[in-house]
Each structure stands twice: as structure tokens, then as C-alpha cells.
């Protein structure tokens, strides 16, 4: 299994510092907790947003997840990754809220319409034209980020959640499966479908002019 891309610049040093912080907070230096979780606040929010799809709810769920992590910090064991533990708490919190708020009913209708068996069926890519690369530099532009987020938001929940945890939160297959309570095989199947659908959406985005105002379209290519 491939390791998720490294988020921290110096994982060894940062990991040791993080472990020190965890130990300190566990021993009662509670004021250090925010320093401990600050590097992950974006990921926590993104996880909540992918599930709840509402900024206000996502922020509240993210905050609540942080508070729960704080409350349960003594239960954290060093053999786990702190980021994964934190994301799992967030996913649980967000899923619980969604169930509570019954928005799941609407989601289920969507999922039902697309068919339960669809997950097992193969997804055929639609666009076979030469791929027009969207470089990472393009992410500097807010409208590009927004377009990508919108594309992700159009995916059915089960694909969106797996993709978010795996490719955005960098959980591995097993961690993603555990967080969502599904099998590793389901994670792989959904991930494949999510990636291929997003690829088609981005390809279509070129046609719709999503990226037409990018600097590299005007011959000012950054690569």
C-alpha cells in the first residue's frame, strides 16, 4: 500500500514535536492543545464539509470534533497517527450530525436513484481526448479551487466521502474503510469511480471554460 503523500515538511522532527505536545496535553498542559491541532484544522474542516456540504454545519462539526478530541486526548495511543485519529473523530461527528438532521434522507434518494449495484459496475471514462494538464500552480487561483470543489460536490455522497478521505485527507485504504464503516474493497471501488468521474468533470470543465482564464492559456505557461 502506498504511503499517502507527506503533509508535513519534516515528518520526523514534526512527529517528535507532535508526540511531545500530545504527551504534554495528556499530562494536563491543556493550553497546548490548540498548538497540537492547528496543523490539521484545514483537514478537519474539509472532512466535515465533504460530509455535511454546508459551511456553517461543517465549521460547527469541526469545532465540536476538536473539543471531543481534547476531551478524549488521554485515550489516544501513540501507535496511531494523530491526524488519522482526529479525522476519524471528525468523520464520526459529521456522520452523526447528518443522521440527526435527516439530510441523509435526501442523500439516500440520490444514491438510490443511481442504484446500489452501480458501485460494482464498471465506470467507463467518457473523454478520451489528449489530457490537458491542470498544473498545481493553477491552485493559486481561487476560481480554480472553487471549480474543483464544485466538481467534487456534484459526486454522490459515497464517492465524495471516500475520495475526500483518501485523496484529500491522505488516509490509507484501511483507515478510510474504518472511518466510514465500509470494506477496503468498497473503498477501492468507490475511489476508482470518484477519480474517473472527476477526471471527466475536469475534462468537461475545459470545454465549459472553467480554466480558460488561466495564465497558461494565454501563452504565459508557468511550467
Amino acid at each position, binding site marked *: *500500500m*502506498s504511503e499517502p*503523500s507527506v*503533509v508535513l515538511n519534516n515528518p520526523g522532527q514534526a512527529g517528535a514535536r507532535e508526540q511531545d505536545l500530545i504527551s504534554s496535553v495528556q499530562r494536563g498542559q*491543556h*493550553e497546548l*492543545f*490548540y498548538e497540537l491541532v*492547528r496543523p490539521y*484544522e*484545514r*483537514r478537519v*474542516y*474539509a472532512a466535515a464539509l465533504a460530509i455535511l456540504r454546508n*459551511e456553517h454545519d461543517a*465549521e460547527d462539526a*469541526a*469545532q465540536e470534533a*476538536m*473539543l471531543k478530541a*481534547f476531551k478524549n486526548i488521554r485515550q489516544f495511543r501513540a501507535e496511531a497517527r494523530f491526524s488519522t485519529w482526529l479525522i476519524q473523530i471528525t468523520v464520526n461527528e459529521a456522520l452523526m450530525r447528518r443522521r440527526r438532521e435527516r439530510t441523509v434522507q435526501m442523500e439516500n434518494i440520490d444514491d438510490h436513484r443511481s442504484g446500489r449495484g452501480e458501485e460494482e459496475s*464498471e*465506470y*467507463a*471514462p467518457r*473523454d*478520451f*481526448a*489528449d*489530457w490537458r*494538464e*491542470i498544473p*498545481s500552480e*493553477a*491552485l*493559486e487561483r481561487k476560481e480554480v*479551487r472553487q471549480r*474543483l*470543489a464544485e466538481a*467534487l460536490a456534484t459526486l454522490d455522497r459515497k464517492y465524495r466521502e471516500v*475520495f475526500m478521505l483518501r*485523496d*484529500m485527507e*491522505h488516509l490509507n485504504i484501511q483507515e478510510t474503510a474504518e472511518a466510514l464503516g465500509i470494506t477496503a474493497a468498497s473503498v*477501492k471501488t468507490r*475511489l*476508482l469511480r470518484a*477519480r*474517473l468521474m*472527476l*477526471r*471527466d468533470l*475536469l*475534462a468537461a470543465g475545459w470545454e465549459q471554460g472553467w480554466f480558460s482564464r488561466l495564465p497558461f492559456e494565454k501563452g504565459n505557461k508557468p511550467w
Partner: protein
Amino acid sequence: MVNHEAVNCEQVWREISNYVDGEVDAGLRASMDEHFRTCKRCASVLAGTRNVVQLYGDERMLEVPAGFSQRLEKRLGQRLETKQSGSRWSSWSAWLVPVAAMLLIAGGVLLTNSLTFKNYIQSRHAQPGNNVPPDLVVVVSDGSKLFHVPGCPFIHDKASERTMTAKEAMQDGYVPCTRCLRQYLKTGLTHESEDGSEEAEGQDEVLSIAGQ
């Protein structure tokens, strides 16, 4: 053995996600590599899939609303304050609870005493005797802790009457019957309370057998 001809486009699409993640075995990888070299369509699918993974995996895709960090820090801070005051309360209440429980118990006992024992002791029954002539012949019976003068109408269970001296009765924990012995004491103990003070005292106050 690696069979490069074994994979078609559909098989490639099915495995392309695992391929990007490096989760296909060497044989399949070689087959797919070969396929990508010859199939522009699948090469496009591979490039697009990698582009998706690269773009969405970028930290810049994880945006938070303006002021998110400040609000989070503030909420955590509020929780910390609550927890600290809570922990002060906890340590305080750690000993407060048992103390309060003891006070409640003590209060309950005092209340019970005030309602029961005081009246009981003040009752004219079962008062410890004093100045009872030790060799006075008295009667005790089962079911009562009083001793009586023989013939007292208030002897319980007369069938179990036993006769003994007052000294023996008191040593066995019996106390004088306030009916027969009060009258007896009033009249019979005048020779032991010639100054009269002890008699008066014996009538109105609780006297101790141990005081003898």
C-alpha cells in the same frame, strides 16, 4: 509470466486507480505500462486520473472560511476555562461530597435523636434507677427490661417471672419500673435520702446506675 496482451482498455480502467496508488502487482503493472504505450485513450485516462489525485491532494484545496482559526481557538479557549474551573470544582468536590454526606448523616442522627431518643429517655419507662436498695427483692420477666416489686400489675408475661435482688437486676441491665418502684422509692427510700435532695433529684432527672 507477464502477458502484455492480456489487458484491454476495460481492464485498464478497472485497475487504473490501483495502478496510480502503486497497488498492482508487477505483472499487471508491466501489462498496463505496455498498454499505455500503445493506447492513447488509456494514456489520457491515466494522465487525467493522476492530475485529479495531484490537484485534490494539494493542501491548497483545503480551505477554511475566513476567521475559522480564530473562532476555533476561541471555542477551545472557552472549553479550557470551563474545564479548569470544572477541575477546581472537581478537586474541591472530591472532599466536599463525603463531608457533606457525613454532615447529612450526623444531621439525620441528631434529628432522629431529637425526635426519638430524647423522648424515649424522658419517658417514664426504662429510666436507669438510682438509690434502689441493692437487696430489694424484685421481679423480672421475659419480654421486658424492667424490674418490679412483687405483685406489680405491670409485670409482663407473669408466667416467666423470676425473683432476684435489685442489685442483680440492675447488673443484668434491668431498670426500675417507674410505676411500682417510683411509688416504692418515694416511700421506701426515705431512709436513704434523709436530706431529701436525692429523692427530689431522683424523681425529675435521669440518674445513672453508674452513679451509685
